[in-house]
């Protein structure tokens, strides 16, 4: 864990206490059972907004607290531990696009509402099942956007879409010319294909030619934070389980074969944490954020895949049951791994950034 200041310490403790007491995985079970396509509890998101979490990266004069990326990451990691369903990651990414690319007018119009949780934003980039920001077909003519985006996170709850078109990023409000088609993925959260058919679009004109890359780097880091929380939780619960389960008249934790596997996972988890926190710190410092973000998500993909698989295996048969939580983490893990860059995409990007 990175060395934190007092403010960050408090924020993390508050998030940890809230998720543990108010939002354990049983809350996710309730959301799932409700069948609501938004797949989160609006009351819960309102509470998160009251605690200020929706405005952590938003400047103070636009209604946020401007605590920075490391602070945002701490909260999201805690939410990941209990699989708290909310559009906080999606909305924070959307806010970052407006902070980086919006005019003063656009910022004044949208940021306070995102910060207060009144509206939810999300990013819509990919047009196929695999993340590929180089393949964008959506286009804008006369302020009207046309094109189809696939597997958009939190599409059902979002009021505002940050949409990648051929010539840049655009803000599109949910409404006329915007049609959602449910895409139910294994994590059972909100995903949809979105057809934009002449929807009114407002261009984010600042932030330079690489605005989309910058926003995606932020998406990668925040997604990696959620994944870090998940990996930490699966590791912790698996370790607890090994300390309780008895076979051959012995607690499983006393078997050296299992001890060494856990030691390996512990080491990988340490690398993942360093990479993810390094990504957050690079965003805050503005020092080589593209490399750091790519590395953060690449390590998150590698290690969460490993830990989510080992978590199932080490739990044995009960890990395969819906009654146990570990399966939820496995399913959510794969969805996040594929989002904003698979491992092969990220390695290619890392090599390109490194000039080879």
């Amino acid at each position: 864990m990175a060395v934190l200041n007092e403010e960050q310490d408090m924020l993390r403790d508050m998030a940890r206490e809230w998720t543990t007491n108010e939002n354990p995985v049983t809350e996710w079970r309730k959301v799932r059972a409700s069948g609501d396509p938004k797949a989160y509890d609006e009351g819960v998101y309102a509470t998160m907004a009251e605690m200020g979490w929706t405005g952590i990266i938003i400047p103070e004069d636009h209604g946020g607290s401007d605590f920075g990326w490391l602070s945002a990451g701490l909260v999201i990691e805690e939410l990941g531990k209990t699989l708290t369903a909310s559009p906080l990651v999606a909305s924070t990414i959307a806010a970052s696009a407006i902070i980086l690319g919006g005019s003063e007018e656009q910022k004044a119009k949208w940021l306070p509402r995102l910060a207060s949780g009144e509206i939810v934003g999300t990013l819509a980039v990919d047009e196929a099942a695999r993340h590929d920001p180089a393949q964008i077909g959506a286009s804008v003519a006369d302020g009207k956007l046309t094109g189809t985006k696939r597997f958009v996170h939190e599409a059902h709850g979002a009021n505002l879409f940050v949409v990648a078109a051929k010539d840049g990023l655009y803000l599109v409000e949910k409404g006329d010319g915007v049609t959602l088609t449910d895409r139910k993925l294994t994590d059972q959260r909100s995903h949809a294909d979105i057809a934009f058919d002449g929807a009114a679009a407002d261009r984010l004109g600042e932030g330079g030619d690489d605005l989309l890359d910058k926003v995606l780097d932020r998406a990668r880091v925040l997604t990696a934070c959620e994944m870090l929380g998940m990996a930490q939780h699966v590791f912790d619960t698996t370790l607890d389980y090994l300390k309780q389960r008895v076979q051959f008249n012995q607690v499983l934790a006393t078997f050296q074969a299992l001890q060494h596997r856990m030691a390996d996972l512990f080491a990988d988890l340490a690398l993942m944490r360093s990479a993810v926190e390094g990504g957050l710190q690079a965003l805050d410092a503005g020092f080589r954020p593209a490399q750091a973000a790519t590395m953060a998500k690449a390590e998150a993909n590698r290690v969460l895949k490993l830990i989510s698989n080992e978590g199932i295996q080490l739990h044995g048969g009960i890990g395969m049951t819906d009654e146990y939580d570990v399966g939820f983490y496995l399913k959510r893990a794969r969805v996040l791994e594929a989002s904003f860059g698979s491992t092969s995409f990220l390695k290619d990007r890392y090599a390109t950034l490194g000039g080879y």
Partner: protein
Amino acid sequence: MATQPEVDMHSEEDAFREEVRQFLDQHFPEELKGKGNAMASVEGPGDETEPQRRWREAMGDKGWGTPTWPKEYGGGGLTRKEAAILNEEMAKAGAYNPIGGMGVMMFGPTLLEYGSEKQKKEHIPPICRGEIRWCQGYSEPGAGSDLANLQTFAEDRGDHYVVNGQKTWTSGGQWADKCFAIVRTDKSDKHKGISFMLIDMDAPGVEVRPIQMISGMSPFCETFFDDVKVPKENLVGEEGQGWTIGKRLLQHERTNLSGGGSMARMMGSSLADIARKYGETDADGRLADPVLRDRIADFEIRWNAFLLTARRAGEESKAQGGVSEISSVLKKVGTKLGQERAELTIEIMGLQGLGWEGEGFSESELAGVRAWLFGKATTIYGGSTEVQNNIIAKRVLGMLDHQ
């Protein structure tokens, strides 16, 4: 007013940086630029050249080879911040720290903690000046990973001990002046029967035989003790305290062995540069072999995550005032990645990367092969990877003893 101390701190740092620059300018011999050798302590002393001697003495006099050690024993008495500045400036000037070896890395810090005032006054200053070489008398033929099983026995003869037994894997034993050793003073208790003592390598009865390794080098020795007389004043701490002191020393060893993977860093060029040199690139300057390119990126990502972890462990230790729990993974991960890098390096070069000697191979190609082979030792010595896993499982994860 609030910013005043910060300004002062900065100007003090600037003044120190200036002092370092002047010192380097005055004392670092131009011809030694970029000639530091991280392997010096295992490859042997060779013959010190005149400029090397002058540089060692200059650094030794200043105490800057052991920058954070107390001044009263010959150290530099610098703060961590100042030591970091010293390192930065040395790197900029192509200079290196000529004071090293096991005295600096392991024995010195341990003696500063456990030694008597008299022992510290006697042994620390020559380490700071790089005058005395120390070796480590730990492993025995029957005590490798199970180190506490050591049998070398020191018999109490009143004012001295008489030591009999055999140590092995004594790094640099053939060049060492003195040995810090753990030996048995009580056969009835495995751990509490161990004591930590200092043995002169030129004492009668000490015999050293170098072991030739797969790398062709002989950095390790077998060391035999045959009725070797060791004065009681050479006992560090109490009799029976050797296991505690010895383990503390191993913590210093682990920190140094992981230390950002010196094996890999020594190998110089980045993997991508090596791949460009020995392979093809496409029109965009990308490596033409997509599989290799992927593997290099895969390695570099994990390697950089490891470097971040080493930095994080340091920051956490500093903030908590104790050893961070992730320190336990550094040795295991750093050595594994170092080996992986060496394997990738020779693989990229093809058979040109497997030269043993003679014409047709560059110096760095030959060195690469030896380093690849020597690197296999890194996951065995200093507590093997398997021992590290036991330590992590038991002490950090609280999994119960498997025995």
